[in-house]
C-alpha cells in the first residue's frame, strides 16, 4: 500500500497550484498572442517594382486590422522576407518564416517562386496565398490543398481579353503573339489563343487565324529581332505577355517601325501602369490587363482608402493592382481566422475553402475545390497623352470573374 504523508500531499498540492499559476498566464498569452503571417516577395532584383507595392498593400491591411482591434482580439504580426524573385531564395525564405512561427504565408510575384514554395507547404505545415503568381499549374496539375490564389489567372484574364477583342474588333481575325519563353508566357498564350478560338466564332461569326507565338528572351536588352519576326508575321492583332522592363524595352524599340500602327489592336496581358509611368507620352495605344483599377471601383470603401493612402504616401497617382492584391491576401486570412480563431494550418485551410471576403474589387470567393478566387477581370485602354501623368485611361472594362473562370479540376490540367 502506498503511504502518502501529510507533508507529501502538501508538496503535491503546492506543485499543482504553482503549475496552475504559471500555466494560466501562458494560456492567456496564447489567446492574446498575435497571429504571425509571413510575407515572401520580390523586394530586390528585376521584380522589385512589383513586390514593393504588394508589400505596401499587405502592410496597410495589417495596420488597418490591428488599429481596429485585431482579429478575435489578437493583432497580426507581419514578418517580411525578400525572395529576390528567385525560386531557391523564395523557398529558403519561406522555411525561415515558418521557423519563426509564421504558418500563414502570403505574397509571391512570380509563378516560379510560388511553384517552388508550393512544393514545401505540406512538409512545413503552412499555407500560402499568392497575390500575383498566375501559373495555371498552381491550381491544376500542381494543386496542393495548402495553396490559395486571391487573384485571377490566365484562363480568366486572357480569355476575357480575347472576348473583349472579339466584341470590339470583329474585323481583326488574324492574331499573333510575343511571349516570354517560360511558364507564365506559355500559360498566357494558351489561354488567349483558346479565348480567340472560342469567342470569335461566337461573337464575330468567324474562325480566327492564329500564328505561332514569337518566343522572346527573358531579361534582354534588344528585342529588334523579335520585332522583325512579328513584322514578317501576317497577323494584324497582337498579344504580348512580356512584363516589366522587358515590355518597356520592346515597346520602345517597336515604335519606330510603326509596329503599333501595323499591329492593332495590341493587347498587353498584365503590365498595369508600369510601362505607362515609364514611357509617358511615348506609350503606344494598347489594351492592358490589371488586378485593380481604382477608377473602376469608386465608392468601394477599401478601394478608396487604398488609393488615398497609397497616393498620399508615394505620390503615385496610378497605383498598380499589386497593391490591392497584397491587401486581399491579408483580408482572406483575416476572414479565415474569424472562423478559425486557433489559427492552426488545418483550421485555416478549412476556413479559407469557400470563403467570401471583401476587397478593393468587391467580394471575392475562394473556390473550395481548387482554391482559385472568383474575382473580376479588369482591362483598360491606355495611351500616352499631354497631361500631368503623361498618359490617359481611355476606357475600361470590369468583367465578372464567374463568367470567365475555368472548371475546377485540381490535380488535373485545365479542361479546355
Amino acid at each position, binding site marked *: 500500500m502506498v503511504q502518502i504523508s501529510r507533508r507529501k500531499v502538501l508538496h503535491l498540492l503546492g506543485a499543482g497550484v504553482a503549475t496552475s499559476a504559471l500555466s494560466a498566464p501562458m494560456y492567456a498569452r496564447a489567446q492574446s498572442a498575435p497571429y504571425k503571417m509571413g510575407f515572401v516577395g520580390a523586394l530586390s532584383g528585376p521584380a522589385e517594382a512589383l513586390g514593393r507595392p504588394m508589400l505596401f498593400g499587405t502592410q496597410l491591411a495589417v495596420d488597418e486590422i490591428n488599429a481596429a482591434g485585431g482579429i478575435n482580439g489578437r493583432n497580426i504580426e507581419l514578418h517580411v522576407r525578400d525572395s529576390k524573385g528567385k525560386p531557391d531564395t523564395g523557398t529558403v525564405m519561406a522555411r525561415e518564416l515558418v521557423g519563426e512561427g509564421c504558418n500563414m504565408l502570403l505574397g509571391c510575384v512570380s509563378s516560379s517562386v510560388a511553384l517552388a514554395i508550393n512544393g514545401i507547404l505540406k512538409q512545413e505545415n503552412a499555407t500560402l496565398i499568392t497575390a500575383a503568381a498566375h501559373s495555371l499549374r498552381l491550381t491544376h496539375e500542381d494543386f496542393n490543398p495548402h495553396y490559395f490564389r486571391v487573384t485571377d489567372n490566365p484562363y480568366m484574364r486572357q480569355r476575357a481579353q480575347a472576348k473583349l477583342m472579339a466584341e470590339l474588333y470583329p474585323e481583326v481575325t488574324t492574331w499573333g503573339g510575343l511571349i516570354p519563353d517560360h511558364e507564365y508566357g506559355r500559360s498566357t498564350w494558351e489561354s488567349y489563343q483558346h479565348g480567340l478560338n472560342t469567342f470569335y466564332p461566337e461573337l464575330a461569326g468567324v474562325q480566327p487565324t492564329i500564328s505561332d507565338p514569337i518566343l522572346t528572351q527573358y531579361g534582354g536588352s534588344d528585342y529588334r*529581332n523579335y520585332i522583325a519576326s512579328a513584322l514578317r508575321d501576317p497577323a494584324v492583332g497582337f498579344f504580348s505577355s512580356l512584363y*516589366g*522592363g522587358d515590355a518597356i524595352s520592346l515597346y520602345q524599340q517597336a515604335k519606330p517601325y*510603326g509596329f503599333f500602327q501595323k499591329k492593332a489592336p495590341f493587347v498587353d496581358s498584365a503590365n498595369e501602369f508600369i*510601362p505607362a*509611368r515609364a514611357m509617358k507620352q*511615348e506609350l503606344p495605344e494598347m489594351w492592358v490587363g490589371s488586378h485593380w483599377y481604382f477608377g473602376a471601383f469608386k465608392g468601394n470603401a477599401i478601394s478608396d482608402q487604398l488609393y488615398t493612402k497609397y497616393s498620399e504616401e508615394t505620390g503615385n497617382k496610378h497605383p498598380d493592382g499589386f497593391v490591392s492584391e497584397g491587401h486581399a491576401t491579408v483580408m482572406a486570412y483575416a476572414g479565415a481566422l474569424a472562423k478559425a480563431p486557433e489559427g492552426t494550418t488545418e483550421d485555416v485551410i478549412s476556413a479559407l475553402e469557400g470563403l467570401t471576403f471583401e476587397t478593393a474589387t468587391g467580394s471575392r470567393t475562394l473556390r473550395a475545390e481548387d482554391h482559385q478566387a472568383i474575382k473580376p477581370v479588369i482591362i483598360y485602354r491606355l495611351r500616352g497623352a499631354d497631361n500631368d501623368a503623361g498618359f490617359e485611361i481611355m476606357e475600361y472594362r470590369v468583367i465578372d470573374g464567374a463568367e470567365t473562370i475555368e472548371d475546377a479540376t485540381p490535380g488535373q490540367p485545365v479542361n479546355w
Partner: protein
Amino acid sequence: MLADFLLIAMNGLVWAMAVFLVASGLTLVFGILHILNFSHGGFVMIGAYLAYSIMNLGSGAVGIVAFLGLALVCAVTVGAMGFVIDRVVFKRLKDVDDSYSLIATYAVLLLSEGAVKTIWGPNFLSVSPPKGLGGAVFLGDFIMPAYALFVIGVGIAVFLVLDFWLQRTASGKIMKSVALDPWMASLLGININLIFTVAVVAGFALAGLAGGVLAPNQSLSPMMGGTYIIQAFGVIIVGGIGNVRGAFLAAILLGLIDAFGTVYVPSFPGIFFFIAVAVIILFRPQGLLSGVR
C-alpha cells in the same frame, strides 16, 4: 525578301554596336591592368541614369547635337568616378590574386546598384530618342529606326577613335607598351601608374558614354548593369581579351549570328549568342585576334 534580310542584318549590327560600346571600356581596362572589371555594367547604368536626369532638367527630348553633348557629359562624369574608383579600389588590386579583383569589382557593382536605387528609385524609367531620331528611314520595303542607325554610327565612330588612338598616337603606343610589359616600360622612364590611371578613367568614360548613348535603347532599372554585361564579356572573350579590334569584330560576328538565328530558328530565343561563343572558343580559345592589339 531582300528587305527582310537587310532588316535582320541591320538589327544584328545595332546589337553589335550597342554591345561594343559597352565592351570597349571593359576590354581596355583588362588589356592594360589585367583586371576583369565586374562593375563596368554598373557604370554603364549610371551613365544611362545621368542621361535621364539631364534630359529631364529641360523639357525632355533634345536634338541630336545636344544628345551627343549630353552623352559626353555622362562620359566625363563617369570617367571622374573611374578616377576615384582607381584611387580607392584598383590601386590596391595590382599585386593581389585575381580572385580579390573579382570580389572587389563585384562589390563596386553592388554599390553602384544601391546608389542608383537610392537616388532614382527601383521603378522602371525610360528615355526618349533625340529629336529627329524618333522615326525611321524607309528604303522601299526596308525600314530602319533612325535611332538604331545612330547607335551603329556612334559604335563605328568610337571604334575608329579608339583604334586611331591605340595604333597611331604616341600616347596609345605607350599605353600598349605598358600593357605588354609594365616592368620594361617603367625602366624606360614611363610613368606606369599614370598610364594605369588613364586606362581606368578612359574605360569608365567609355562606360558613361555607352550609358548615355544607349539610354533610349531600353528601359532603365537598377538591374540594368547586368543586362549588357554578359554579352559584353562574350564579345571580349571571343575577340581576344584586351583587344579592341577583336571586340569590334566579335561584336559584329556574334550580333549577326544571334539576329539570323533568332529570326530563322524562333523556338530557341537568345540561345544562338551562347552557342556561337562556345563554338568559337572551342576552336580558338585565345580569341579571334589575340595578340594583335
